[in-house]
């Protein structure tokens, strides 16, 4: 099958990939670009493990053909922060033990990042509904909710730098 050149900006870098029309974005990210932070849990857009941020929206990257992302700006967990300089959410997930196995964590944090951009002062209920598209099977979500609330608090401090 013929392949199309797809130009993307991923985590601040311009990249090109060759993709078949039917190829999903998550496969291009993981297999061609070696960005393996976004995980595959279902490939039917229910679990949210593959969540990335595309042009300011949370997108389950198994929902999108790669070609549909042509020209867009994509942020994955790798682009939110790195081991030297963690994003506040990454810091808070670590600090509040907002994970056990960690498989849902990249998608969960990426989704929470967009949630806090959209709603910087969420209630617990806002957080619970805001991340309801991301499944976690280990934690009962308790420490995830705590971590997101704590990140919101810190981001709302006047001196905070995201």
């Amino acid at each position, binding site marked *: *099958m013929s392949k199309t050149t797809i130009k993307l900006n991923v985590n601040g870098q311009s990249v090109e990939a060759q993709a*078949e029309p039917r190829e999903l974005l998550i496969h291009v990210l993981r297999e061609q670009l070696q*960005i*393996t*932070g*976004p*995980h*595959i*849990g*279902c*490939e*039917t857009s*229910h*679990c949210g*493990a593959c969540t990335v941020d595309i042009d300011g929206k949370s997108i389950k990257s198994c929902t999108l053909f790669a070609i549909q992302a042509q020209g867009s700006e994509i942020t*994955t*967990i*790798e682009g939110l*922060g*790195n*081991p030297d300089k*963690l994003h506040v959410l*990454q*810091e808070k*997930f*670590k*600090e509040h*033990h907002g*994970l*056990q*196995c*960690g*498989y*849902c*964590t*990249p998608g969960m*944090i990426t989704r929470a990042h967009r949630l806090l951009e959209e709603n910087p002062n969420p209630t617990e*209920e806002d*957080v*619970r*509904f805001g*991340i*309801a*598209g*991301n*499944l*976690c*099977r*280990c*934690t*009962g*979500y*308790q*420490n*995830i*909710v705590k971590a997101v609330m704590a990140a919101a608090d810190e981001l709302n401090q006047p001196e905070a730098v995201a």
Partner: protein
Amino acid sequence: MNDDPAYTGQTFKSVGTRPLRPDGVDKVTGRARYGADFTMPGQLAGLVLRSPHAHATIKKIDISKAEALPGVKAVVTSQDLPDVTGGDRELLPILENCMARKKAFYDGHAVAAVAAIDMPTAKAALKLIEVEYKVLKHVTDVDKAVEPKAPVLHKDCFTRGVDPKPEKPSNVAKVSTFGHGDVDAGFEQADVIIERNFRTEQTHQGYIEPHACVASISPDGSGDLWVCTQGHFVFRQQCAQLLGMDVSKLRVTSSEIGGGFGGKTHLWLEPVAMALSRKANRPVKLVMTREEVFRASGPTSATSIDMKIGVTNDGRIVAGDATLRYSSGPWAGSWAMLGAMTAFACYDMENVKTTGMEVLVNRPKTTAYRAPSAPMAAFAVESVLDELAKRIGMDAVEMRIKNAAKEGTQASYGPVYGPIGIGPSLDAAKNHPHMKAKLGKNQGRGMACGFWFNFGGQSCTNLNISMDGSVTLTVGTIDVGGARASLSLCVAEELGIPYEQVKTVIGDTGTLGYNEMTDGSRGTFASSMSAIMSARKAIDEMRHRAAKMWEISPDDVIWEDGHARAAGDTNLPPLSIADIAAAAEKSGGPIAGHTQLVADGAGVSFATHICDVEVDPETGSTRVVRYTVIQDAGKAVHPTYVEGQFQGGAAQGIGWALNEEYVYGEDGRLQNPGFLDYRIPVCSDLPMIDTQILEIPNPNHPYGIRGVGETSIVPPLAAIGNAVSNATGVRMTHVPMSPPRILDALDEASA
């Protein structure tokens, strides 16, 4: 004293604190590598062809067209996985499940597999494999499978455990009975007897990471397997046996694991990946889709349980008798046996009898799911107890307190208990503020107890002191819930050094002796016992090294707060681990402690849960509004992770109680193999889950530790069932209590 596992009653510095997890940064940044994140040069893409039929004879498989497709490097069927098990009762079903032989036994059963240069080619090849089936009558329901006219899955299945041996084959693979006393005499003394049938539907562990592995088998008979698993040593043992390899020539490396809950204790596609790699002479990656995970990997049993319990008017349980039918998929398991053992384990009973029946059905092979089999049995027992308490006008907690097992009680499954936590957990529930909180409209409160054995078993650890004095602990048990942090805490405690100075790693199968799996809540219990012994051996070694450096007798060197100190009034300054390690080259070489042991005496575990629900009488929809878990941990090494296990198990139990179930059509096909129609709890479904950790030390572990991972899923079905029953006034007997079932129950009650 180095290898004495007895509880010492010591006070702790590190154990019981809540440090950050060592795998935290990797997991929040996407660096952590899971099963599907590993690739090898020259790697092929594998895919499995699965039966669309619930029960069919495989008459012929023609792979010639698939093999001829350019880019296809190997196609395998059962012929490429010949039976070298010698008919082993445990191994042969694993082989048959990984690749169907004469018959396909369930919708999703693997019948062939391909390895190709890329996924599109593999997909195209799969379509070119021609399988000729003869479709047979099937049975997926656990009760229908035991009916005399049910289609029999295996013509050579004669029920084991009954005397005399049956004359005809059936779908009841095994019967196991437990108990003591005389239940008939016991029921004679009863003032009230309640007898009911309970049903629970099949659920999946629902780990978010699908099964994945990369296999590379060399023509010289050696090989590597990279895999997400709960037990890489067990995988190595079984894979090598199934492929006819020397065990030591297969090296298995475990990836980070994206959830397991029992489902990754079993081989599903690893032997197939190895067979493909062996045939193609290239590395092969196999990753399941979510649909495959549901259709073809380990769900728990569906059950049908006849429960009969009698009490006196003052609340004494005088007899309990249960028959428990557990589906085990197409091959025998020990699932009904575990249900029959755990059912009455919380109570001190004079007359008790349980009969477990392993029932074969055309569904995927049943696998462990967190305290396997215990939640369903507890659902039946705890529901009837609640109803009995109501009938005699006694408080449900008080009645359980009156009957709770205690130290010295003979368990219904045989052994005599040591110190246990059922009584204390009930007392804590009685005094918990949750019990006194006011309920709103359409709300009800329920409580229930639960038990799990906890496993011990073989463990092996290495502790190595680096030249800078930092410490590496190598263990052979997978970290599923924070065990690396907990094991580091134990080593830090024993050596008397900060937690941050210890790094715990999971070794591959080439680095250690055999380790059993992370199952049965054994990971932290067993590996910590071994790690503590390894640390003690390293301390002993360091005392000798210090003695050599000081030129005094080792008997005059004591170990205190991470330092060797010369006993008595000397001017010798204490030596740190770093000091001793720096001189190791001159004092005898690298310093290490190695231990291999069988961790006996895993303390049994008990929990009591309290739950409030709100039931919408219009829709039958149920919401858990408050939930409390009280459980004995022996000693909570890292309390946050203990709480995490309590919460996670309760959340899974809530999903099971209210929503989750396998739905099979008349055609025997699974109708909901995806997270849309098999709905696990999402964040907005759940309340915060309160936890209370009790610490009744396990006398068989130096720190008093008990396993904590599983018991938390045992009470929820019953606790929620009791809460819904109290909210609606209708006794719920069928899990999950999904909206249609609740509406039906309400309709039936008002009719």
